[in-house]
């Protein structure tokens, strides 16, 4: 444990150092974007147009010095992206037999990447290390948000053995509650977010009280409860879609900030603050686990519930606390994620598998492992876009999860006997 703690604190210090460097704004709303490159060389000044499938023009952009372009589109739907071949440099062309027009669907809140098949073998040669710092900081930001959600998931698993597939809906719930307070009721985002976190935490406690505690009392098996969480996730996702609709929407405050230009990276103020909040919260959790009575009791219950109970710890009270705290943290993660992206009914569902990857990577049931694993997942997801197409970055993170389980099934900080 000491060892793990030192590793975590070291990691957090490292994170703080990187924080003093820079980061990037995550674009909000649906966009079509990409980078034009041939043999590692960026193509500047190429015109890209986007039109609806009916041929109605939606936007146009010229690639910048890095060959990048971003074209916002009004809503989710199918779009035709066309590269103007006239504007390509002479030595570069669309590959033979391929079209300069690509029809693709843009999902709700998706930053849809487009790859044009240029020249020969251009796809795998994107080794521009210049993007590394920017991506690393974006990844750190993302990883910290995942970590907030993952700590709760891991604590719940540790104390009750429940693999909670409905944890993604706790994340969404936080974001939706903040939307309710902020946009529908008109409260400024900071107090609205505070209210939403408190409400998420309370609802987490209620969920435990009305659903999971009776099931535990009844002696329902863990696998059966796992299936119940899947049913609950389906139900809640349907409910969110029913209430909120399928579209995405931003909060009223802190939209469209210009980023600070800090050396090799740009970062929006809200992302900096988001990272700060994550780090403070995670440090608070670490302190609570290591130094407070209830935190020590939590670790004792994670270790051996029967022994903890027999040494006078009120196991049910610990589990209630863990649910309240876990749900609150998940809600906060949802709010921060929605601030970076936008609010949608499947915000949490979309990152649930990454949260699981973080938790499993670190070692199921170890809170500090969840933290380290999540940071690894977040940074890996973003940095991997140097090597793999953006739309496959999540697949990459999940593949790493499987590979690590092959080599070290108990995860980075887990103990070997945890895996049967």
């Amino acid at each position: 444990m000491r060892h793990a703690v030192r590793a975590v604190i070291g990691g957090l210090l490292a994170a703080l150092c990187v924080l003093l460097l820079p980061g990037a704004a995550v674009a909000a709303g649906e966009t079509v974007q990409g980078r034009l490159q041939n043999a590692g060389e960026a193509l500047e000044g190429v015109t890209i147009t986007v039109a609806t499938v009916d041929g109605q023009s939606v936007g146009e952009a010229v690639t910048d010095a890095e060959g990048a372009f971003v074209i916002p589109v009004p809503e989710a739907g199918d779009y035709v992206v066309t590269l103007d071949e006239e504007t390509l440099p002479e030595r570069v062309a669309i590959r033979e037999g391929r079209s300069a027009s690509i029809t693709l669907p843009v999902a709700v809140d998706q930053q849809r990447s487009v790859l044009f098949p240029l020249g020969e073998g251009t796809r795998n040669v994107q080794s521009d290390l210049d993007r590394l710092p920017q991506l690393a900081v974006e990844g750190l930001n993302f990883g910290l948000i995942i970590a907030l959600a993952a700590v709760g998931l891991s604590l719940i698993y540790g104390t009750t053995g429940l693999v909670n597939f409905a944890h993604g809906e706790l994340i969404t719930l936080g974001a939706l509650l903040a939307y309710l307070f902020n946009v529908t009721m008109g409260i400024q985002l900071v107090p609205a977010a505070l209210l939403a976190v408190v409400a998420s935490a309370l609802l987490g406690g209620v969920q435990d009280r009305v659903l999971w505690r009776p099931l535990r009392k009844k002696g329902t098996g863990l696998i059966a409860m796992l299936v119940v969480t899947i049913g609950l996730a389906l139900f809640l996702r349907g409910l969110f879609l029913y209430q909120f609709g399928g579209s995405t929407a931003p909060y009223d405050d802190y939209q469209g900030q210009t980023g600070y230009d800090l050396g090799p990276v740009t970062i929006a103020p809200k992302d900096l603050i988001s990272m700060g909040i994550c780090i403070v919260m995670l440090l608070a959790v670490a302190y609570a686990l290591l130094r407070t009575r209830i935190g020590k009791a939590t670790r004792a219950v994670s270790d051996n519930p029967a022994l903890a109970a027999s040494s006078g710890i009120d196991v049910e009270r610990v589990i209630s606390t863990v649910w309240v705290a876990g749900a609150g943290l998940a809600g906060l993660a949802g709010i921060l994620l929605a601030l970076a992206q936008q609010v949608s009914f499947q915000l949490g569902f979309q990152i649930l598998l990454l949260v699981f990857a973080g938790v499993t990577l670190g070692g199921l049931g170890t809170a500090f492992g969840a933290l380290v694993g999540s940071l690894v997942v977040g940074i890996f997801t973003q940095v991997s876009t140097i090597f793999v197409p953006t739309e496959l970055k999540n697949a990459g993170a999940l593949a790493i999860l499987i590979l690590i389980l092959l080599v070290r099934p108990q995860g980075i900080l887990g103990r070997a006997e945890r895996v049967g």
Partner: protein
Amino acid sequence: MDWSLILTNALTAMVGLDTVIFALAAIGLNVHFGYTGLLNFGQAAFLAVAGYGLAISVAEFELPTLVGVAVGLLGAVVLALLLGAPTLRLRADYLAIVTIAAAEIVRLLFRSVSLSEYTGGSDGLGRFAEGFYSINPLGPGEYGLGPLEFDERQTWVLSVGWTLIGLSCLLVFLLMRSPWGRVLKAIREDEDAVRSLGKNVFSYKLQSLVLGGVLGCLAGFMTAWGRAVVQPDNFSTDTTFYAYTIVILGGAARVFGPVVGAAIFWALLSLTDNILTQAKSAGYISDSILTTFQIGQVRIMLVGLGLMALMIFRPQGLFGDRRELALDAR
């Protein structure tokens, strides 16, 4: 409210394409989950690999349909081995996380722009089903049974589908009363006891994963032929979750459980859909409570609630035997 239409639609759904697809997927899942106790949350991946194996072979490489089927079957076997070799030694909850992750990887790969040359990206692939429909012995026309009516293409798809369901059930029935099947059930009950009897548990689990995967891949073929197009989002995690609901509804570790479960599942969904739609158009439900767009969501919520209620109050489903459930064992 046109009750005869509502009932006819529900009956049609009971034998329709969705029932066929999910019955086959659930039969495979029943081998994993019901008989062996494997928590495979990646069943959708088997459907995807089979459907795409068929579609890519036929549409992109212009191979005959039978070769496409062979590619799909091979794909499912390879996927089962790839998935099983690293994960079957892990504990049940780890297996669940890894299989669900693997299924998402498969879906994301088929979705990706970089491979869209072969897979058609998120639009998917078409133009591969003609080989299947060209061997249809039925002439053009309407075929029906009582109030149910299908055209010759639907009739052909459904006949093939129900034949496959029949054969799969027969296979599962025969295998599970064989000594081999008894070992699977014993693994579900107590892995260590089986190991102490000198059985290679890992090998049996892997065989079970392959068998269930191949059965699931029949569902992939039926998806491809029935819809005449394969799209990555047909194979999302929700597909697997629906299949689980069906297995548990019908009763895990029962030969006909998945089939009955699928028929009831889709009949119930059709009933709620149709009743709500009709009640809306008759003006019984105002827009402030439920818009037409929201009917689909009510359906998802019902599936979720149904799955929870089943698991809590009747985990053996309609026809299962409570003693034959691995759920509470570990």
